[in-house]
């Protein structure tokens, strides 16, 4: 019997996806409903906000982009 499951489709780069999968596996798999393919995940709607936060935290540890242009005041 065909099923329709409510949720959120997340599209991202493979690198980001692997971080998301890692976050999920260290949090009792409470975020991801279905791993769709290299660039797509299917996620619980209620957990999306928290997942974004966790990703933000993870990226802050590793990544600091620079301001593209310095202004001469």
């Amino acid at each position, binding site marked *: 019997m065909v099923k329709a499951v409510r*949720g959120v489709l997340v599209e991202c780069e493979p690198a980001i996806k692997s971080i998301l999968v890692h976050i999920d596996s260290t949090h009792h798999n409470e975020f991801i409903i279905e791993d769709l393919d290299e660039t797509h995940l*299917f996620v619980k709607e209620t957990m999306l906000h928290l997942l974004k936060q966790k990703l933000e935290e993870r990226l802050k540890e590793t990544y600091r982009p620079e301001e593209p242009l310095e202004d001469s005041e």
Partner: protein
Amino acid sequence: MSTAQQSYQLSDYLEKLPGTTFRKLYQQPSTAFAIFRRMLPPLAKIFVQALLYMPAPLLLSELDVWVRAEGKMHRDPRLSILRSLHIIQITPPGKDRPQEMQLTTNFKNSLRLALEGGGTHNSFGVPSTLPVDPRIDIAHLDNYARKKWEDILHYVVNSVPVHGEAGGGGSAGGPKSSVKDLLLVGHLVERRHDTRGGVGITQAGFTFLLQEANAQVWTLLLQWLEAADRAKGKSDSIDMLSFLFMLASLELGRAYNTDALTETRRNMLPALVDFGLIYIPREDTRQYFPTRLATTLTSSASALRSVSSGFSAATANNPGDASSLGTTPDTSAASKGSIFIETNYRLYAYTSSPLQIAVLALFTQLSMRFPGMVTGRLTRDSIRRAIGFGITADQIISYLASHAHEQMARAAAAAGRPVLPPTVVDQIRLWQLENERMRTSAGFLFKDFDSAEEYVSLSGYAEEIGVLVWRNDRKRMFYASKFEQLRDYLKSRKKAE
């Protein structure tokens, strides 16, 4: 994250209504006419017009003859809009009979009545026969509507916690408490203790501010309808919605009779006065006057004034000038542009309107304020903050483009360049991408199909009606943004078998 922050629009509301509600709504010629005018894209209008006087249902295959081969991809989404608004019926695909389509009965009859006139439906309002106070002219109504609506916008803007200067309008007095409650219920503002008014703006509120006036009015009205749904049940809100459509068909500057209204509709009047959609003279409550906010409800959204052009029209303080609230909205909006943006991300805005400054402060790092001018810069942090509020890069870009100073537009046109410097536009988009490492959309995953055939047919149908977002044939799964029509399709398929 792009889905959740788009504030609530009429089409979303209508989509959720069941077919019986539509049948009741379409009993009113004004409603059928308003839906036809406002909700349908041109191709869909052509279909409806062609079907309107057709005596018998049209074979779906004959429709293909009307549509050129290259237009095929536009045809199905239009049909799906018409179906979701319950304007057309298409017979389910069966083995023995070809598919036919026709207009739904109520819609057809009402639209014919609306076009031909006649009938005793009073659906387009009953003009008042009482003498009209000569002081109530179009300019008076415009001023009144503008004041009421800007009170509401000010209330939302003033709830931005960042800038003290945003609260310039102490004279406003603010909207009625019923309107404030509505803003709270609609989550455009929320209770907070760190701001002066005790409320703070939400993500939806920011999106609300950057919208055109017409979209703003609908956002608020729909909140109101939903609140009525919860309080009194569906039957009231149907009548309320058709009353709104009726208001949209009335003539600006004319007096209409309040006694001719049903009780539900009469009960709506005080709230509509608070929103500034209608005006009722204090001395004589037997008459009501629709304002421009009401009569433009169902005209095309792009023709209407935006926040700041409306505000500059108001601060121009020219009570005798009837055109200031947009009898000629295109010219007034174009001449009110005040923003310069340079390739080094600096921004200059010739404005002293607290409303526009507050809106700019949402995504700009403002540094200096002069009489009649503010300067600032777009920075990664300021854009990032705006995106954090739920504003999208495209909203910022379109706001800047539509409010660019005419000098910028002229220089760009002379050099054959776009109005905004491409570097800035690209950078705003890049900043957004940087913050949006994942693109998300809410919807439904279809899986566990019984057979390959079932999968192919349903996913094919999803693609046809334009809701298919992702599919994987090997796993036999697909993801669609909506499921109502797919469910109906499955049901009708089951029946056919």
